[in-house]
C-alpha cells in the first residue's frame, strides 16, 4: 500500500481514490474532522481539554474489550466514551466550564484517576485477547486501513447528530461557557448544558479515535481549535476556521500517509502541530506589531462615533 508518488498530482489522487479502503478512510476522516473541529473549538473555550483527552483514552478499553469479545470496535469506542462522559460529568466539579471567570473547572485529579484506570483496563483486554501487536498499535495510534462501509455510515449518523445538537445548543452553550453566572440568572440550564457537552465530546472523541487512535485524538480535537482561537477572537469565525483547519490537516495527512511508509497518526499530528505553531507565531507577531488584524474591526457596519 505504498504506491510511489509521481509528479502528476491529479493522477496520484486518482490512484489513491481507486482504492475502496482509501475512499472509505477519506469519507470517515472528513466526517471526523468536521465534528472534531467544531466540538474541539468549544472544548478549548471551555478548557475541558483534559476531559476530552480522558474520554479518548476511555475509548481504548472499549475498543479493546469489543475486539476481545468479537464485537465491532466502533461499538466499544462509542459505548465507553459515552459512559465515560457521564462519569466525568458526575465527578464533583466536573462539567463546569473554566473560562477564566473564577476558579471552577474540571476536577483534574479525579479525571486523571479515571484515565489511568481506563488505560490499564485497555491493556488488560488486549492481553486477554492475545491479539497481535499491530492491533494494539492501531487502537492507540490509528490506521487508515479497514474502515468498512458500515463504519462510515455509523460515523455519518453520529456526526450529523453531533452537529445538529451543537447547532441547537449553540448560543446558550457559548453563554454558559464564557459567563456561567449571568447565563444561569438568564435561565440558561448551565449544569445540563455542561453534561450535554461532555456527551457530545464523548461522541466526538469516539469518532476521532477510529481514525487517529485513542492517543492521537488531540491532533484533530485540539490542534485545529487551538490554532483557530489564536487566529481569530470571533466565535463564529473561530468555529469555521477550526473545522477548515481540521479538514485540511486530515486530507493532507491521509494523502501523504498513503504515499509514504509512515502511519497516518504521525502525519495528521505533525500537520496539526504545524498549524498550531504557525497560528501561535502569527498571534505573537500580530500582538507585538500593534495592529490587531484579527480583531475584525472592519466587520462592524455603522459603528458609532
Amino acid at each position: 500500500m505504498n504506491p510511489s508518488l509521481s509528479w502528476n498530482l491529479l493522477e496520484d489522487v486518482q490512484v489513491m481514490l481507486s482504492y475502496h479502503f482509501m475512499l472509505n478512510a477519506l469519507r470517515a476522516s472528513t466526517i471526523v474532522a468536521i465534528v472534531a473541529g467544531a466540538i474541539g473549538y468549544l472544548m478549548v473555550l471551555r478548557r475541558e481539554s483534559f476531559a476530552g483527552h480522558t474520554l479518548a483514552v476511555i475509548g481504548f478499553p472499549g475498543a479493546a474489550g469489543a475486539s476481545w469479545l468479537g464485537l465491532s470496535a466502533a461499538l466499544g469506542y462509542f459505548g465507553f466514551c459515552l459512559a465515560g462522559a457521564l462519569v466525568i460529568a458526575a465527578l464533583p466539579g466536573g462539567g463546569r466550564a473554566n473560562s477564566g471567570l473564577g476558579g471552577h473547572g474540571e476536577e483534574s485529579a479525579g479525571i486523571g484517576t479515571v484515565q489511568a484506570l481506563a488505560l490499564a483496563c485497555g491493556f488488560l483486554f488486549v492481553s486477554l485477547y492475545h491479539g497481535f501487536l499491530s492491533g494494539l498499535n492501531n487502537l492507540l495510534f490509528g490506521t487508515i486501513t479497514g474502515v468498512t462501509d458500515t463504519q462510515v455510515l455509523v460515523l455519518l449518523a453520529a456526526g450529523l447528530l453531533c452537529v445538529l445538537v451543537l447547532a441547537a445548543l449553540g448560543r446558550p452553550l457559548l453563554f454558559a461557557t464564557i459567563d456561567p453566572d449571568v447565563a444561569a440568572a438568564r435561565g440558561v440550564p448551565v449544569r445540563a448544558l455542561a453534561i450535554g457537552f461532555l456527551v457530545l465530546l464523548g461522541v466526538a472523541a469516539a469518532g476521532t479515535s477510529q481514525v487517529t487512535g485513542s492517543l492521537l485524538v488531540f491532533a484533530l480535537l485540539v490542534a485545529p481549535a487551538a490554532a483557530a482561537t489564536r487566529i481569530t477572537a470571533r466565535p463564529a469565525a473561530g468555529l469555521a476556521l477550526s473545522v477548515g483547519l481540521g479538514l485540511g490537516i486530515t486530507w493532507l495527512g491521509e494523502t501523504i500517509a498513503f504515499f509514504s511508509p509512515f502511519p497516518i497518526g504521525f502525519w495528521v499530528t505533525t500537520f496539526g502541530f504545524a498549524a498550531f505553531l504557525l497560528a501561535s507565531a502569527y498571534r505573537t507577531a500580530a500582538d507585538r506589531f500593534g495592529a490587531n488584524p484579527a480583531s475584525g474591526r472592519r466587520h462592524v457596519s455603522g459603528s458609532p462615533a
Partner: protein
Amino acid sequence: MNPLGQTDTPAGPTHSQDEPLGTSPADSAVGADHYRSGQDGDAVVSLNEAAATLAGRTIWSQVSLTVRGGEFVAVLGPNGVGKSTLLKAILGLIPITHGQASVLGARPGAHNAAIGYLPQRRAFDPSVRVRGIDIVRLGLDGDRWGVPLPGLGRAKARAARERVTGVIALVGAEGYAHRPIGQCSGGEQQRLLIAQALVRRPELLVLDEPLDSLDVTSQGSISALIQSVCRTLGVAVLMVAHDVNPILPYLDQVIYLAHGGAVMGPPEKVITADTLTMLYGTPIDVLRDRAGRLVVIGQPDVPPEHTSNQKSSAR
C-alpha cells in the same frame, strides 16, 4: 429591626403593563423599547420581612426593603453577611423562605429578562480569546436556542447589531470592544460587562461589587457611569459595595445588612453612629474625613468560618 420605620411598604400591584416581560425575550430585546422611566414611586423590588436560608442556615431574616424605579441603592455591610445572597434571592436563584418578595411585580426570577445582572467575579483570564462585543451580544440573545439562519430575518439581525453597538457607545467602550476581552483592563472589562447587563434595556440593574479589584480612577469613572445610566435611562440600580465612598455622592438609598437583619434609608440617616449601633447592638462610630469620606469603626467581623461557609455554599 427597622429603626427608620419608612421602608415597610408592602408589595403592591406595581406593574400594570399589559405585555408580560419574560415571554418573548427576543422580541422585547430587539423590538420596541420597554423602558418605563416615568414610574418613579413604583416599587421595582420589594421585600417584606423576608428571610433566606442556605444549606439549612439562616443568612438573614426580617429584611424589609423597597427599591423604586430609577433609584440608585447600595447594599452595604461586613463580609459574609449575605449581600450577594440578597442579590441572588432577588434574582430568584436562592429561595426566600419567609415573608413576601416581589420583583418587577412578580415573584423573584419571573422577570429576569428585564434585569441586568453583574455577578461578583474576578477578571477574565488574559487568555480568553473572545471579543468584548461578542460578550455584549450574548447578553442580548445568548439564552436563545438554535442558530439564526443566514439570510433570514436580516432586519432583525441589523437591529440586534445596532443595539449592541449602541449600548457599547453608551458605556464608552467603542475603543476596545473588538479586542479579546482577556486583553482589556479591569475597568474596560467592567464597562463591557455593564454594557452586557444593559443591552436588553432592563428596568433593574443588579451589580455585585462592580468596583472590587479596580484601581481608584476606574472606581470613580465606573461609579459615574452607573449613576449616569441610572439617571438618564431611569434604570433602578441595586449595587453591593464593599466601600461606599466612591458612590456616596450618587446614592438615593442604602441597605445596611448586619447581624442577620437590615436597615434601609438615605445614606445620611443609615450610615450614622446611632443607627449602626442599634443594628449591631455594640457601639459603632462613623467618622467623616475632610473629603467627605465615611469610615465605620468598631464594626464586628463575621466569624471567619461563617464567612468561608457562606462563600462556598453560595457558589
